[in-house]
């Protein structure tokens, strides 16, 4: 295991008197093994192993699902069959006892933005039988039109490069695009047009509205040396400060990572295609080739539960195996 401690209720961070862990935010990674259930309430985070989470009495909640980085078309050594592992992920979604209300896909649907890759992905993802909300990853904008193919397929009703928002079960969902017009030497980028839209989008909402924000590249700075962050992410988050519950869901880095800061909890999902190394542990963020039998422990899906009233949020990351 990595040097990061596996989170559990026993190892919950020490918090200030007001219940906010200002300084030592929770940051953790899970590499393999069982999933982790995260419950976050008023900035207090605690986690339990997946086994205990599943044994608990299921509460009636809004449940939705996140998948990410399916990279359909990828066929290199780290996973020669990215389509096959996406199929397994969808099969796992179909076995969930409680059917999620919908699914979000946090980008890199395809590897090279080819029509066939999008077609293959769509064909499999629709087998989940639930609505899907997409945001593009940088791999989805590689067509000659630099994103036209993505927008034609997934962008109906979206603004700009594909951003939009919607409401479900009292929760306001915001889909952001931070993979266009990237600047040399820089990070992910939202741009002024999208930031203005975001500010207006949340302007009329009561602060008690739970928000879920999703985008491909992490909105928080994970590891700038590898471009893992969003240059104007802080500005976006500044518009969300007054809200009591903000959940930020990202992909891009192909591993589970989480952090809690005040009322904002950040979470990245595993890929369904191939893992990437932990920050700084390899010469580059390229696909991680694992020993035989280890791959599917590092791929997976995430289920998110909202329980109304007490406002806890739980994210369960489930690997395809293990």
């Amino acid at each position: 295991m990595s040097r990061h401690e596996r989170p559990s209720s026993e190892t919950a961070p020490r918090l200030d008197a007001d219940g906010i862990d200002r300084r030592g935010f929770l940051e953790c990674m899970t590499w393999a093994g069982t999933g982790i259930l995260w419950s976050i309430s008023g900035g207090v985070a605690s986690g339990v192993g997946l086994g205990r989470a599943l044994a608990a009495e299921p509460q009636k909640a809004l449940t939705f699902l996140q998948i990410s980085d399916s990279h359909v078309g990828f066929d290199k050594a780290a996973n020669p069959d990215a389509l096959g592992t996406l199929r397994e992920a969808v099969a796992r979604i179909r076995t969930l006892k409680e059917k999620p209300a919908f699914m979000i896909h946090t980008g890199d649907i395809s590897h090279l933005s080819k029509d066939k890759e999008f077609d293959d992905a769509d064909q499999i993802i629709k087998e989940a039988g639930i609505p899907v909300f997409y945001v593009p990853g940088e791999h989805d904008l590689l067509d000659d039109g630099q994103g036209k193919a993505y927008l034609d397929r997934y962008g109906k009703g979206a603004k700009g490069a594909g951003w939009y928002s919607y409401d479900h079960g009292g929760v306001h969902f915001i889909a952001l695009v931070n993979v266009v017009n990237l600047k040399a030497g820089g990070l992910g980028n939202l741009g002024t047009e999208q930031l203005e839209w975001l500010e207006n989008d949340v302007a009329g909402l009561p602060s008690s509205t739970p928000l879920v924000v999703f985008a491909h590249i992490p909105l928080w700075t994970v590891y700038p040396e590898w471009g893992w962050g969003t240059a104007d992410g802080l500005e976006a988050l500044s518009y969300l400060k007054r809200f009591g519950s903000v959940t930020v869901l990202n992909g891009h880095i192909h591993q589970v990572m989480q952090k809690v800061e005040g009322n904002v909890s950040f979470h990245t999902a595993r890929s369904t295609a191939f893992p990437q190394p932990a920050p700084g542990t390899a010469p580059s963020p390229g696909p991680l080739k694992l020993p035989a039998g280890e791959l599917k422990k590092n791929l997976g899906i995430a289920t998110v539960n909202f329980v109304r009233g007490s406002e806890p949020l739980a994210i369960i990351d489930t690997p395809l195996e293990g």
Partner: protein
Amino acid sequence: MKQSPLPLPPQVAVLAICLAFGALATPAAAEDVTVSIDNFTFTPAEVTVTPGTTVTWVNNDDIPHTVVDKKQAFRSKALDTEGKFSFTFTTAGDYSYFCSLHPHMVGKVIVKAGG
């Protein structure tokens, strides 16, 4: 790099160059420069060439990359593994470029007349 002034048939000259540089050498001819992309890095990160030089980028990673000039003088499509992109530099100047997929990857081509 100088052109060989040897009064020999071209085949002999090429053979001589191959022998001189060995099998591992990349700059086979004076006018060609190759920049390889390995581990999300342009190598060499900076090259200086004379006007008229063609620079070829080769992607050796398992992940696609692009080669995009900051001032839009050139922009490659996504280069998959072993994909190549060439651009002939005719105008002197500094060309800073990056990968639009992984913008932390940056490089530079300096074009100036030989002297």
